């Protein structure tokens, strides 16, 4: 049945999800601003056909775990398929894909401040640049030509305008001048990065990267690295994954590393200039100055639904059977030991640090 197909597709799309936690404001704040300061936020997509996703709070010492904190604070469900969170100063923007909305909350108290609904259709990820929010939208999932990036007026919490873009805008990140959109391809396939000038809000250029670009991270010199999964075998024309470095001063491609055709990496994460990604049931690392991709795995026999690194730790999630509470695994990057396993919500797809 189509319904099953939709579920499957949605779930599948979620498999490619990367945690776009490129927020540089992980500064430790001394004063207590709310219950959810100094901790980890896990975005749980929730069951795909019907129901609501949740956000789980985990204190930095992992001792305190609170499920469904948005509902706890606001007595309201977030909505169906909670996709991602973006942060700006004291606010968090929770993007809810299948309910086509963004909840604006205080990031430390999780009290609701606004809901943005008008102008969003299948929203995916958000970033903030030049005082504005930028949200990738798939548009109508049956239409491959109506995809767009909506621009949020962060004072009024409304969509102020939108920019038509190529098929399947997914991960989005920004520096002070430009917004970078990875076009993974929604239900189809794409291989582009669109670059939006944050002063004029037009697409200033488009770069071709590998097939299915799924995640982007910054190195310490301000260059952008784009990881593409490559086309999987089932597409009939399997292509290799690639890692592409973009020089953001002139928005040109500096270099591209090719994986083997059967290798399909995902979940690019970074700490300082060390990148981490998941591939073939293992985690690999790559230093930004190296001239070849790693051949030895950093961590073997792990497969995460979503993965990121932060402050000497690797965080990975397990969605289990997609119909029960998932787990968050925390590894020490030095010892490579699993230090914690924490039960979170249904289909944990995003890991953020408050």
């Amino acid at each position: 049945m189509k319904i099953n197909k939709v579920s499957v597709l949605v779930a599948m799309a979620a498999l490619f999800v990367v945690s776009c936690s490129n927020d540089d404001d992980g500064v430790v704040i001394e004063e207590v601003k709310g219950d959810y300061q100094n901790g980890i936020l896990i975005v749980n997509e929730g069951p795909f056909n019907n129901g609501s996703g949740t956000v789980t709070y985990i204190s930095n010492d992992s001792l305190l775990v609170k499920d469904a904190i948005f509902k706890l604070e606001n007595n309201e469900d977030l909505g169906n398929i909670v996709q991602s969170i973006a942060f700006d100063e004291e606010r968090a923007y929770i993007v809810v894909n299948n309910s086509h909305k963004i909840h604006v909350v205080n990031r430390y108290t999780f009290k609701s401040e606004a809901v943005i609904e008008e102008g969003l259709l299948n929203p995916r990820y958000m970033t903030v640049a030049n005082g504005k929010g930028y949200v990738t939208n798939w548009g109508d999932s049956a239409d491959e030509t109506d995809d767009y990036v909506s621009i949020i007026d962060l004072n009024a919490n409304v969509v102020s305008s939108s920019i038509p873009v190529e098929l399947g805008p997914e991960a989005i990140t920004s520096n002070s001048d430009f917004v970078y959109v990875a076009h993974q391809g929604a239900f189809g396939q794409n291989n582009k990065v669109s670059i939006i000038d944050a002063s004029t809000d037009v697409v200033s250029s488009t770069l071709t990267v590998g097939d299915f670009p799924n995640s982007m991270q910054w190195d310490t010199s301000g260059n952008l690295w784009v990881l593409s999964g490559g086309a999987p075998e089932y597409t009939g024309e399997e292509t290799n994954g690639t890692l592409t470095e973009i020089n953001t001063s002139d928005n040109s491609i500096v270099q591209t590393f090719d994986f083997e055709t059967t290798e399909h990496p995902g979940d690019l994460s970074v700490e300082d200039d060390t990148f981490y990604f998941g591939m073939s049931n293992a985690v690999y690392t790559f230093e930004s100055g190296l001239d070849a991709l790693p051949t030895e795995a950093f961590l073997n026999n792990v497969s995460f639904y979503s993965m990121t690194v932060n402050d000497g730790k690797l965080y990975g999630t397990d969605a289990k059977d997609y119909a029960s509470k998932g787990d968050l695994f925390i590894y020490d990057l030095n010892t490579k030991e699993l230090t914690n396993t924490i039960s979170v919500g249904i289909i944990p797809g995003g890991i953020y640090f408050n």
Partner: protein
Amino acid sequence: MRNYKPFFFILISLCGVCGYAQRDSITVLDEVILTDVRLLHFSNGKVDVLKDSIVDRNGSSLTDLLQFNSSIYLKENGLGMISSPSFRGTNASQTAVIWNGININSQLTGQVDFNTIVPRNYGSISVRSGGGSVQFGSGAIGGSVHLNDVFRFDKHSEHQLLVSYGSFDTKNFNYSTSIGTKRTTVGFGVNYLVSENDYKYLGTDQRNENGAFNNINVNANVGHEIAEGQLLKFYHNTFIGDRDFSGTITASSNSNYRDYNSRNLLEWSHFNEKRIHRVKFGYLYEKYKYYDNKERESFTFGNTNTFLVNYDYKIDLNDIILNGIVDYSYIEAKGTDIENGKRNTLATTLLFKHNLGEKITYGANLRKEFVNDYKSPFVYSLNARYSFNSYHSVYFNASKNYRVPTFNEVYWILGGGSGGNPDIRPESSLQAEIGQTFKKEKYTFQWAAFYIDSENLIQWRPNNDGIWTPINIKDASNYGLEVSLELAEKWGNHHVTWKNSYALTEAVDSETENSLMYVPRHKVTTSLTYAYSDWRLFYQLFVNSSVFVTSDNSESLSGYSVSNLGLSRGFKIKEKLNIETSLQVNNLFNKNYQNVAYRPMPNRNVQLKLKIKI
């Protein structure tokens, strides 16, 4: 057609619940007229016949009918939307629906959407509990629901018109007729149901925004006695549905679903007192179109064609009945996501029953299928019944049953991150059941205890490459107890009937020992009818206890009870003209309930009906 007698419904409902109890009076002709003979002779377990008066109340969908009148748990994605059964804690593709003896579960999904079956114009509807794959094929694991047309070979001419109007702009129109002579009979029924279905979600400011639906259902049948001992019958059913699919509390919907089903069966039988030959030709067609956004032209679709030939030979050797069946079917499926699915199945079945004296009956049944695209297990069943006397009996049965992989499971085109699995195997189960029946004029009491051990249950999961594909992953065991009690009493013009059922069901994942999702531990139904002269008042209720909505049992949906109340009056205008008017209040206590999480069901609503019978 149903032989409706508006003012004698209580007498009708006294006429027994158990199919087996009526078999002694069945003549060969009666038997030949009946197509689903396996239900009659080879179902030595629990069979509940749903009476006309019940079908009258809850006749617009099989969902409505069974949730108030059986132990089957039903979950609907909102009123009128996709509805799937759980029979004895099994999943939706483990309940078979048998139309005039043919299994009509979708070849694409393995299930029947119970909101696409309109029970109103069938002559007989029965619910058979327990495994029946030998007799009824794939999916008869939890049990089966039997829809049968009934032929009347006598001189008659009857017409019935029903119109009703109710809340949410719900209109129902039904016309049925039955005309016959001693040698030829024709039945026809058409039902049209349309509803805006825009009920409010209690406790919210939302409504069921995208839930409008309509459907047309046509039943037709012709029977003709060609010569002495030769009968030709033709059956037809068409269902055309057009539904906007409701969203959930957290996500709106703009989708639309259209389905079309056509079922045709031609049967020739040649019989004498001892032997019956039957040859059947069947053609089934199913098609769906799904519009994710109904404003747009684009849709996805799937359709299947099933051609079947069946030869059935039954011989009655005094105390032994033997029945051999050879059944060949060719099925082809096409669709947006299915390419060139073809399946050839040859099924051989042997059914044996022996009456050992007056008190003991036992039987053994065997079935083996030969299929081109998967390996089908050998299935069998054994049963025995001991009758202490005419009103008290005990029975035992044990069987192996299966559910074949669907076309979606085998042939789904690899792409977009999902794909079928050509190596998938059938789901199979072993089960055993014991039960006891007391049946007297004023009461019927039955109980049954069952155990089902299922293996290789199919679920869609991501494989090593991250592709969602069906795999034989789960084993489960289900056990439970079903009890029913019916009482009837009359004092002069006052008639009272009271029907009750209770089911205790445990369905447990064998590996994790968690309860399976969406299986209530308790289900209760009750229905109390009081009739005085031309007046009739009824109250019906069902209760489902809470269900888990996650596989680790971390979240659940609370239980609920739903009540309906109805009042009707019959008028006899002339000798042959009867009119009945009725008012029915559904969800009498305005309960806020969901049977699928985040999909609310309707608030209190009313329905007015007018029925004219000539």
